[in-house]
């Protein structure tokens, strides 16, 4: 039997206590001091050295793990909450500064990912928000017509261009009298530029609108009136409403203080009295106008017709009733064997759900939204997996740091929380840079995609909120995997340098992640290359004629004026020849039966 050795016994006792749980060196020394006092006590009482030591240990220790737990509990409060958070933030900043190039790479990838995600979300939100400004939109419909097996987004007058003011007015009144219809509106928009004269200025203005249902036009769409009186616009014909932008163009930035109500607006040979100023048409409206004119007769073969139904009415039934009453609404259509009926379309579905003839703005396509959303999701996944892989590799060298923290009592949750916080801090640091880059890129994006995202992108909290939410989400998702991988690694493996648990062993989470990342990347690059080649083909294909050196001029004139125009142009030495034809880009119509 081995002789009892106090130093050996003490060393064994210290080692045992340490394996049961973390203890600070000072606490262990104090326990040892008490243990030795008890050992002396039992030696004096007559116990053997081994026996005295055994009893002393029994009276000193609280039980396996309980001693370290008691010390941890005694000192646990006061370093939670704000105290720990401050420490984590300091640690996070220190680690971000230590590995500059790695973190810069991560930062750039995160910023690009956040910008792309924000753009995709903004674009999808914009495209799906068309006409959401319309009050009581559930009951509002556009009336088109099926004619010659083709859908028209507008309706013709009974005598087309020859329809009198009374005939046009009578037609819309008959429509409004159909059971279930609360209100009917008709107007026509003219995209081509026309010269307007007001306030001693003559300016070309596009998107003039003519209506002979002025009060219903204002009530249906709910256009906010900034100056003037809706009743004045409706009371008498030959009155005009300017939009805010047009008011600024003709009367300057201080148009509000200018007495423009009642001033004359001349178009060609007709004078209109300015009755008020409307707010600019929202960019996400399915049509646009700059000046609204109240005229008794719309100068066109047809008009845009809209109807507000009474609450609870079935639009299909109302459509049938309109067709049953076509004899009084439009005798020409009623007698046309090629007329296929009225098309009732909810106004809010027009942008993404309608592609009829003569749409006022190019319609959207919901399939493109799905594609863009899917691509945005892929880029988001690439951003997250890229950060995850870089982070796991980067933090492999912090094994001892994590091990020491675990020895001193840090829980798995605290370790994971620190790494999550570092990921979120890096992600949030991207927000101001992403905002700056978005501010630069949005106008170019609007030109590319035909949107108006920049209009109010940074005026409200929505964009900032979106950037913060996307950044937080990317930071949490990207930081979750490395945080929990590193937190769950055992202390011993950490000190041996093993932080990548599944390295070289079978199929693990990281291998799946890297493989998925490269599959997505290769797929996305291939698609981009394919689309780019298609675009190049579209833009550069030889169409069989020379496109350079041709000037296209839209001449809205009869043939006699064209002859004069042609002869004058031919006098220019630079002009070789002059030809004429139908307007470019016109949609085919009256071609199908």
């Amino acid at each position, binding site marked *: 039997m081995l002789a009892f050795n106090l130093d050996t016994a003490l060393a064994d006792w210290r080692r045992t206590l340490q394996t049961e749980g973390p203890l600070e060196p000072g*606490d262990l020394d104090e326990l040892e001091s008490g243990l030795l*006092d*008890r050992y002396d006590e039992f030696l004096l009482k007559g116990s053997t050295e081994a026996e005295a030591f055994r009893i002393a240990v029994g*009276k*000193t220790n*609280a039980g396996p793990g309980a*001693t370290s737990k*008691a*010390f941890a509990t*005694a000192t646990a409060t006061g370093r939670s909450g704000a105290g720990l958070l401050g420490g984590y933030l300091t640690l996070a900043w220190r680690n971000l500064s230590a590995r500059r190039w790695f973190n810069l790479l991560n930062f750039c990838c995160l910023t690009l990912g956040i910008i792309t995600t924000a753009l995709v979300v903004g674009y999808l939100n914009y495209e799906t928000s068309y006409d959401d400004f319309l009050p009581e939109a559930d009951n509002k419909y556009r009336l088109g017509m099926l004619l010659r097996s083709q859908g028209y987004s507008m309706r013709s007058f009974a005598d087309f261009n020859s329809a009198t003011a009374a005939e046009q007015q009578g037609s819309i009144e008959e429509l409004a009298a159909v059971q279930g219809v609360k209100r009917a509106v008709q107007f026509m928009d003219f995209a081509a530029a026309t010269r307007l004269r007001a306030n001693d200025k003559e300016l070309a203005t596009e998107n003039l609108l003519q209506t002979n249902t002025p009060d219903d036009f204002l009530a249906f769409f709910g256009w906010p009136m900034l100056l003037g009186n809706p009743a004045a616009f409706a009371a008498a014909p030959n009155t005009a409403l300017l939009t805010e932008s047009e008011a600024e163009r003709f009367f300057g930035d201080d148009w509000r203080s200018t007495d423009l109500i009642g001033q004359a607006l001349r178009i060609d040979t007709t004078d209109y009295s300015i009755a008020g100023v409307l707010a600019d048409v929202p960019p996400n409206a399915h049509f646009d106008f700059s000046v609204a004119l109240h005229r008794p007769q719309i100068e066109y073969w047809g008009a845009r017709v809209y109807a507000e139904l009474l609450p609870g009415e079935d639009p299909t039934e109302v459509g049938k009733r309109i067709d049953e009453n076509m004899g009084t609404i439009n005798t020409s259509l009623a007698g046309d064997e090629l007329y296929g009926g009225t098309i009732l379309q909810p106004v809010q579905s027009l942008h993404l759900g309608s592609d009829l003839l003569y749409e006022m703005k190019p319609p959207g396509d919901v399939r493109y939204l799905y594609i863009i959303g899917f691509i945005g999701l892929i880029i988001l996944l690439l951003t997250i997996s890229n950060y995850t892989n870089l982070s796991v590799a980067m933090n492999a060298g912090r094994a001892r740091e994590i091990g020491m923290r675990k020895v001193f009592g840090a829980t798995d949750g605290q370790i994971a929380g620190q790494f999550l916080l570092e990921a979120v801090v890096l992600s949030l640091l991207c927000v101001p840079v992403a905002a700056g880059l978005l501010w630069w890129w949005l106008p170019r994006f609007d030109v590319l995609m035909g949107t108006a995202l920049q209009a109010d992108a940074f005026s409200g909290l929505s964009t900032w909120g979106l950037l913060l939410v996307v950044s937080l989400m990317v930071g949490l998702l990207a930081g979750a995997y490395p945080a929990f991988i590193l937190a769950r690694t055992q202390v011993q493996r950490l000190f041996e340098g093993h932080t990548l648990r599944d390295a070289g062993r079978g199929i693990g989470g990281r291998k799946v992640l890297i493989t998925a990342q490269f599959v997505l990347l290769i797929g996305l690059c291939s698609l981009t290359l394919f689309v780019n080649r298609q675009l190049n083909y579209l833009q550069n294909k030889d169409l069989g004629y020379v496109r350079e050196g041709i000037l296209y001029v839209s001449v809205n004139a009869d043939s006699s004026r064209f002859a004069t125009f042609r002869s004058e142009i031919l006098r220019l030495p630079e002009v070789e020849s002059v030809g004429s034809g139908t307007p470019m880009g016109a949609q085919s119509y009256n071609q199908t039966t």
Partner: protein
Amino acid sequence: MITKALTAASTKPLVLSVLKKGENYGYRIIKEIEALSGGDLQWTDAMLYPVLKRMERDQLITSRWVQTDRGRKRKYYEITTTGREQLAADRAEWLSVNRLFARLWAAPDASDLITE
């Protein structure tokens, strides 16, 4: 045997009371309390030392390491001014509760009488 709850509640004022008499160390505090309580209170080192650590963090006591003549290290504790104020407050509370119990338990009532 004193309950855990009562032991826990009384530990701090008992330690402060012992230290008020003079500087002391963990093992001797345990033995003094054991002797004064007639064996009713038997603290373990693992119970007392964390309490001493917390009291030191709360600035009720201070500590210093002393090298004994046998070459061992021993941690001595001393009460602070804050500790004395806390002890005075604890003493007032305990005496108040003690007076209440004394009044309640002084006169025997009918339920204490054994009837045959």
